[in-house]
């Protein structure tokens, strides 16, 4: 019923504006992106774009990439195992992962396992800090990670093969193909990663047992200009992986886990004078199988299929004012060995507005209301402003209300699910200062958020764990980042550093949340000269508590990890590039979860072929 209402509503608007059509479109040679809100409504927040060259420098897991280049903290159950982020002091379910504008966090767990995203499949990844639920819905509280498939409409053809082989028999292969002209654009990437992952633990005679993994994935984007006013884009992504879960004690029961995720999206953009209409239709599916003992064939599984439709109408009122209207519809159908078979339908309506008053001051706001009989839905909003009094300085202010809805597991787990759960709700604000000079930039941001009704699985009567809305959380933090780059003749230098401080308190106990460090810092330096280039990466993660009572004996110690890489082109035309990386250069004995050591010094060689 809600769907019909929306389509009707959209239909009316669409017809009206079709009639109003007059001029042909103009701006068609820039990069086409599917994530409209990231492009248009992120000025008052901090967005860090990680381009292709940064992605390639890192190991192709989202955990590795973001750990060494952002303030996001990661908790990893051993290398390549389940990886959960904490962004600005929030939980793993409070970080949204967005693929081409679509929120892809698991409907079952509410989070994305950051070791199930192969970064080499995307041409850019953006990190948007702070609330974004009024654009992306559930989970965009700490921030959102945007996986982008950019399409360009100009004459281009390129082929790229990356082969990376390293310690522990780790083989990573990625092939990318791009071709485009003024009418058609194609981007395709296919990857395969595998590793025995049997690294020896430092200062111990044990090694990482049962930790081997293999995964394959592809990501495709195809754009076609139907005519002067219509562009059709199709995106598709598949991830298929199997991981054995590494053991803590050698006699632990051996388990493994399989993921199969598919994502498909069709996107039609129509330019109608000052109006731009965009329709998206998507189909996502996620499936996991958990083998609790690999000596037999028994497994638990969960499976959710999502059908979505999203309509966005943009209206450029003047060169300084624009507004967007959004209507969307989501239907999730879930079943599994441990959850009831259920269907969930969510509709959403959004309005966004941006006004540039003059060269110094701009503001924007957005509203989103979700409609469902599943949970009580708060009004989601975001209000922001950018003030630029002088050329080198910008002041950014943003306030938003965001949420995280209960998951299928929370609602429908056999014998434990709680259908009366409310969403976790967050009200937050931030002030950012950006200093931008020719070769140097510096940003300083403070943020504060209050999160209500945290959903936690806690023992209820009879000792059965059930999800309930529990305590509130108060977070206060600061982020500092700088970049310096310089080019002297053929020498290029680039230096980045960031530091974040996060205090994230359970308001009832005044204790820091578990697995949220007070301090985290990452830095990288790179240098290139003619054919040769080198980089150095540094990461410091402060101590974290593993227990909610903050017992000072029950912590994961702080650690410092460095990586070093060198590479050189082998030919004058820069078709072949050979590189060597040393990971954990100083052989730090460290772990991010207690008793799950991460590898000591290890090596990788990589070969890069470009045509």
């Amino acid at each position, binding site marked *: 019923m809600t769907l019909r209402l929306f389509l009707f509503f959209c239909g009316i608007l669409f017809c009206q504006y079709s009639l109003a059509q007059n001029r042909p479109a103009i701006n068609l040679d820039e990069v086409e992106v599917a994530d409209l809100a990231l492009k248009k409504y992120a000025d008052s927040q901090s967005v860090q774009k990680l381009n292709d060259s940064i992605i390639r420098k890192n190991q192709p897991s989202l955990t590795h990439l973001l750990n060494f280049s952002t303030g996001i903290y990661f908790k990893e159950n051993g290398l390549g195992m*389940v990886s959960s982020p904490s962004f600005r002091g929030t939980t793993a379910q409070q970080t949204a992962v967005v693929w081409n504008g679509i929120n892809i966090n698991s409907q079952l*767990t509410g989070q994305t396992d950051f070791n199930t995203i192969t970064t080499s499949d995307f041409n850019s990844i953006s990190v948007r800090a702070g609330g974004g639920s009024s654009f992306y819905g559930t989970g965009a509280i700490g921030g959102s990670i945007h996986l982008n498939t950019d399409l360009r409409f100009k004459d281009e053809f390129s082929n790229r093969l990356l082969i990376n082989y390293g310690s522990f028999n780790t083989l990573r292969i990625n092939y990318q193909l791009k071709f485009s002209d003024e009418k058609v654009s194609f981007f395709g990437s296919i990857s395969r990663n595998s590793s025995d992952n049997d690294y020896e633990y430092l200062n111990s005679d044990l090694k990482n047992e049962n930790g081997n993994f293999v995964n394959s994935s592809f990501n495709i984007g195809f754009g076609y200009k139907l005519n002067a006013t219509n562009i059709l884009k199709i995106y598709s992504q598949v991830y298929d992986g199997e991981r054995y879960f590494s053991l803590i004690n050698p006699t632990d029961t051996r388990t493994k886990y399989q993921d199969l995720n598919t994502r498909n999206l069709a996107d039609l953009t129509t330019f109608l004078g000052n109006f731009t209409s965009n329709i998206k239709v998507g189909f996502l599916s996620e499936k996991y199988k958990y083998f*609790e003992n690999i000596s037999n064939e028994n497994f638990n599984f969960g499976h959710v299929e999502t059908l979505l439709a999203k309509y966005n109408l943009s209206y450029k009122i003047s060169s300084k004012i624009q507004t967007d209207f959004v209507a969307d519809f989501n239907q999730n159908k879930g079943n599994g060995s441990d959850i009831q078979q259920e269907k969930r339908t969510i509709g959403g309506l959004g309005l966004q507005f941006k006004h540039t008053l003059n060269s110094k001051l701009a503001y924007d706001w957005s509203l989103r209301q979700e409609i469902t009989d599943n949970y009580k839905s708060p009004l989601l909003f975001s209000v922001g402003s950018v003030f630029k009094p002088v050329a080198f300085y910008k002041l950014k202010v943003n306030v938003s209300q965001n949420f995280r809805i209960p998951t299928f597991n929370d609602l429908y787990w056999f014998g434990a699910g709680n259908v009366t759960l409310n969403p976790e709700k967050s009200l937050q604000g931030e002030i950012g200062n950006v200093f931008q000079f020719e070769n140097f930039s510096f940003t300083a941001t403070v943020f504060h958020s209050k999160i209500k009704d945290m959903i936690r699985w806690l023992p209820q009567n009879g000792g059965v764990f059930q999800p309930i809305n529990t305590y509130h959380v108060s977070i206060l933090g600061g982020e500092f980042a700088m970049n310096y780059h310089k080019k002297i003749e053929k020498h290029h230098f680039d230096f980045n550093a960031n530091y974040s401080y996060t205090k994230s308190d359970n308001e009832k106990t005044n204790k820091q949340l578990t697995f949220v460090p007070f301090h985290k810092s990452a830095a990288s330096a790179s240098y290139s000269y003619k054919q040769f280039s080198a980089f150095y990466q540094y990461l410091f993660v402060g101590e974290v508590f593993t*227990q909610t009572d903050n017992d000072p004996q029950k912590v994961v110690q702080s650690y410092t990890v460095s990586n070093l890489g060198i590479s050189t082109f082998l030919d004058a035309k820069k078709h072949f590039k050979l590189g060597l990386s040393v990971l954990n250069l100083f052989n730090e004995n460290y772990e991010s979860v207690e008793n799950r050591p991460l590898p000591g010094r290890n090596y990788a060689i990589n070969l890069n072929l470009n045509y």
Partner: protein
Amino acid sequence: MKITRLFFVALASSILLNSCSDDDGNSPNIPLGAYDEGVLIVNEGNASAGTVSFLDDETDLVSQDIFSAENPGEGLGGFVQSIFFDDDKAFIISNGSNKITVVNRYTFKLITKIETGFNVPRYGVVENGKAYVTNLASFTNLTDDFVSVINLNTMLVESTIPLNAIAERIVEENGKLYISNGSYGVGNSITVVNAATNAIETTIDVGISPTSMEEEDGFLYVLCGNNVANSKLVKINLANNQIISELVLMGLINAQNLSIEDDKMYFTVNSAVYAQNISATTASSTPLFTSGATTLYGFTVEDDKIYVSDAKDYASNGEVFIYNTSGVLQKQFNVGLIPNGFYFND
């Protein structure tokens, strides 16, 4: 995954083996080790490690993680479920790591580790030179559970007894093993095994899921409950394996932790502690007292003291409360993560 782990914790449940104390006439004046004369408290812990705390009867002091203190560099394994004893040896069962750590019960010095032949081991007893340990095996399969038979001379598992039913608590009496076939409301019987032949003799249907049991004067008392029905106490005559009486505990859902002391039976429903005469024919639904535990997890009665452990939110250090038999708090102290049971060195 996280949820699965939570359920693992829930399954890797509580309650101790009640018949563990071993009053075998040790001379009271010569301490047999640092941990003679006191209470051992098992802290289940998490997937990486559980611990044992010790309350010293003489000094009233509490020591944490006594196994690591006595055996540096060694660990008990994940999810420590229970302990059983053979003379001066303590067998500490880790269900997450499928191993049993054998220590001297008074010094807590490591003797050996038994690391093969288990699949999620739960509880154990000793009979005639052998130890019998229940195993849950696959959580999703209720018919693959078994009993591992350990030869106490070789300290190796020499055989297994498939039960074709859940294997949880185990009691030994007169050469017979009584294994409760219940876990979290599922399963409704007791399997009787002849320890001399490893053969299943019979299965006694007790109606609803057995949560705990204790042998007393030739009778097996089985407390049964689930999340919907009135709990009940079933009395079985071990001479002929016949049920001779059933006492319905009206209005009491999911009663747990049966402990018999001085002809009185004690049990718990959530945080409330109940007591009544073992020969009573009607049951009172009024608790003796309600304990201070937010999550009552371990419970036993010994020498006129009621021991309660609190697992709290399963993610912070637990607490122990000791009451007298009138329910007056005598002592309260912190222990390790998720305390699940008490054992007595005296």
